[in-house]
């Protein structure tokens, strides 16, 4: 009945175990808990236990639509989950290459509860069943090919001997197809040497004519250029010493285990060609992926860190779920365009919806009445509160602060659809949260001086305001000026300041809502017909929870023919690499988390 069952007959003992399994549901949430909360899902309250490693999970909970990159990442995680495993999908989007969902329901807490109930029944009944289907999508498969340790261009599908030198061909794994595009040659590349050294008796005699230590470093080069023809092209050479680290790591790893016949190794000799760390020591570097589905970062954000011990030597940040410019400029009806933009950023949908409306109104020279403007202010500020609380919950998770992660999540869920009166009731709790965090031991020490970004005009939103810049579009808006709005600015630009800024904005936004007394963005939806035959261009900007976003669009007879979007995360993402280089791993991840990047709004 379930696609990830264990293929065994269901006897008495297994039945009991299956019932126990139905009570303990370790869950991986894709794209992430932050998206689940945004849809009002309280995963913990539904009886699911969110876990960090796919090894500990039995449920894969898919929330809403997944872009292709995340579908593949989720499929990898699913493959690494232990049977019995089960897919619960909320929403009706396709999941391929994941197997079709065992349970598929709508996107609401009520249906999540129903889903968990069904899931327990399914697991208790179907954890063990007589047949099971292997999960083997193409992205996971590797093909074994055989290559000569001396002649890398000799590649055969069958084992045998090298036509040129007669050596036995050695097996290596090759990726079937390039799946995420992020792993460059990594898959094919680590392996050849691996096998090579396992098959050492052969390799040694030829690749290393004299089996002396001095030759070791040289041998790696030989191995590298032999094992991997693809590294010869010049593009790859740009990364020469990164691969270097990898190649060495491979060899040394093997060395420690298999090469019992090795004589004494001089550290100076074996580390001669290794990259130098910040302290001048030469050690192996590791390239480790953090993302796209890493528990400490928002789902979709992908960091690839080259680690020198636990220090980040080099970093690459990308957002494979971001907005493609090509898709943005596709000509489209106004109504569909609005939907598309507001769904691009799953973390701040309302702000982007309002942004398009402002741009349309700008194109049509439409003027909104005061009530609608105030309603929008209320709605936007409520989204800001939710967004900041969601960030707090995620940040709490990243820095291992269990209480904060739980408390902020509870408040976010409460604020999500709250009206003015309910938000008034929430305000003391927001204040209490702020005060609590000011008193929390270790928190300041953990965050002070971490991820310092000073303002140079390129920062946006809370990140800029934490670095002393009065960067807040709300300051220029009459609606906010009428409310005597003042923005909070702090000087030091580190993670602690960003936390303080967002905490201050929580209460500020609550006060703004109090002052406008209305939360209502619906008035904007009513006059859509006005744009049906509109031609011209419009532009607008808005202070989203993450900072200023702006949109320029050209319309022709009610169709959007071109558009340009500028979003805060697009500006912040390229900063990540230089921000975290030479940081300790934990500090680096905290620094990235403190930026509150939304991978969804990154322009590709």
């Amino acid at each position, binding site marked *: 009945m379930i696609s990830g069952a264990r293929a065994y007959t269901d006897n008495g003992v297994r039945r009991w175990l299956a019932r126990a399994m139905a009570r303990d549901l370790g869950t991986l949430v894709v794209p992430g808990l932050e998206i689940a909360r945004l849809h009002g899902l309280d995963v913990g309250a539904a009886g699911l236990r969110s876990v960090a490693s796919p*090894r500990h999970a039995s449920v894969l909970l898919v929330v809403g639509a997944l872009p292709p990159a995340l579908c593949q990442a989720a499929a990898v995680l699913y493959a690494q989950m232990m049977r019995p495993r089960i897919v619960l999908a909320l929403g009706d989007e396709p999941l391929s290459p994941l197997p079709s969902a065992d349970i598929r329901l709508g996107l609401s807490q009520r249906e999540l509860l129903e889903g968990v109930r069904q899931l327990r029944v399914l697991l208790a009944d179907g954890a063990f069943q007589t047949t099971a289907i292997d999960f083997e999508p193409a992205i996971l498969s590797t093909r074994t090919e055989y290559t000569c340790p001396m002649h890398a261009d000799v590649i055969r599908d069958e084992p045998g001997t090298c036509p040129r030198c007669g050596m036995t061909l050695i097996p290596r794994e090759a990726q079937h197809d390039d799946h995420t595009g992020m792993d460059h040659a990594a898959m094919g590349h680590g392996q050849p040497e691996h096998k090579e050294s396992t098959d050492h008796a052969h390799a040694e005699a030829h690749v290393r004519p004299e089996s002396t230590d001095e030759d070791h470093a040289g041998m790696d080069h030989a191995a590298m250029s032999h094992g991997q023809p693809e590294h010869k092209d010049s593009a790859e050479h740009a990364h020469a010493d990164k691969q270097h680290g990898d190649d060495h790591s491979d060899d040394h790893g093997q060395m420690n285990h298999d090469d019992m016949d090795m004589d004494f190794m001089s550290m100076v000799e074996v580390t001669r060609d290794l990259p130098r760390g910040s302290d001048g020591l030469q050690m192996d570097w590791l390239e480790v992926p953090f993302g796209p589905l890493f528990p400490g970062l928002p789902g979709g954000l992908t960091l690839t860190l080259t680690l020198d011990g636990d220090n980040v030597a080099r970093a690459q940040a990308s957002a494979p779920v971001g907005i493609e410019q090509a898709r943005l400029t596709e000509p489209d009806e106004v109504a569909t365009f609005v939907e598309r933009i507001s769904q691009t950023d799953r973390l701040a949908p309302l702000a982007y919806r309002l942004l398009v409306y402002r741009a349309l109104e700008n194109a049509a020279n439409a003027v909104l009445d005061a009530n609608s403007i105030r309603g929008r202010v209320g709605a936007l500020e409520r989204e800001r509160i939710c967004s900041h609380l969601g960030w707090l919950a995620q940040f709490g*998770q990243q820095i291992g602060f*269990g209480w904060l992660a739980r408390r902020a999540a509870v408040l976010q869920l409460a604020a999500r659809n709250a009206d003015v009166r309910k938000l008034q009731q929430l305000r003391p709790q927001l204040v209490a949260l702020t005060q609590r965090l000011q008193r929390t031991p*270790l928190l300041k020490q*953990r965050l002070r001086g971490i991820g310092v970004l000073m303002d140079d005009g390129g920062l946006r939103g809370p990140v800029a305001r934490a670095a002393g810049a009065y960067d807040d579009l709300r300051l220029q808006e009459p609606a906010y000026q009428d409310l005597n709005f003042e923005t909070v600015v702090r000087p030091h630009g580190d993670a602690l300041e960003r936390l303080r800024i967002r905490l201050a904005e929580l209460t500020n936004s609550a006060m703004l809502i109090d002052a406008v007394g209305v939360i209502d963005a619906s008035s904007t939806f009513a006059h859509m017909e006005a744009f049906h035959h509109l031609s011209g261009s419009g532009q607008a900007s808005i202070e989203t929870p993450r900072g200023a976003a702006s949109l320029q669009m050209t319309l022709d007879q009610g169709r959007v023919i071109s558009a340009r979007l500028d979003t805060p995360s697009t500006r912040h993402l390229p900063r990540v690499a230089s921000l975290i280089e030479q940081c300790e791993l*934990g500090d680096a*991840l905290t620094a990235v988390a403190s930026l509150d990047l939304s991978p969804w709004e990154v322009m590709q």
Partner: protein
Amino acid sequence: MTVFLALVSMLLYIYVIAVIEASLRTGRVNAALPLFAALALLGRESIVPRKCDRIFFETAPILLLLSALLAAAVLPLAPGLMITDLATGALFINAALAYVLVALLMAGWGPDGAYALIGGWRFLGQLLAYSMLIVMPITAVAMRASSLLTTDIVTSQAELWNIVYQPLGFVLFFIAAMALAFLPPFDLPTAQGELAGGVEAEYSGVRLAVFRFGRLALITALAAATTVLYLGGWYGPWLPAWAWSTLKLLGVASAMLVAGHYLPRIREAQLLAWAWKFGIPLALLNIFLVGVLVLVLS
């Protein structure tokens, strides 16, 4: 018979501590949850990663459990209620707990996965921070008792518990014990948000069950050690000896578990710096103060 009783009570403590841990996580008390979790793990697949160091990978969970059990074996719950009364008991606790490091390094190295590897090496750094703060306070306790026998250590506190006699030692030992059990905020080797499970990440099914059980046994052993060394062991009015031990032990364990819930994870650099710049001078001061007190009072 006493050995059997001591073992059974040990298991009960472990279970209660598991319940406390689960309720902190879920926010609801559910006495059956750890049982279901354990059974569920037994029924699930358990994988050995490809190209792993099989010996390291398989040994680590068992070694973790063993070191916790051996440490607990020399700690008395009541007069006579212990597994074995070793003449070098206080030293033996140290020796047994040293293997926690070995187990975690093995678990880190074994699976050939990056997160686990970093977690394992991180714990070595953590050892450099906590180890002296376990060893030195125990020395001061032994000075007062003039013995390494754990039963003697308890009887030496008949009039005054060590928590009052040497509060500094207690605080240092308690914090170091949390670091040794890699409990939050010292969960550097398993950090969810930094290493996605770290040394635990590659364990699944029955192997994970043994690993988690070993971790819980370790918390229990450390809570028992704190009770014996600082809280007067079984001493206390009205209630029978074993009841006092139980109450104190579970109290200490709960305190360890609860504290981490309200704190962010510590940075490794700061942990090391604070341990050596403040912890060790304070531990030396503690030894000196106890030395003076012992001489003055005897």
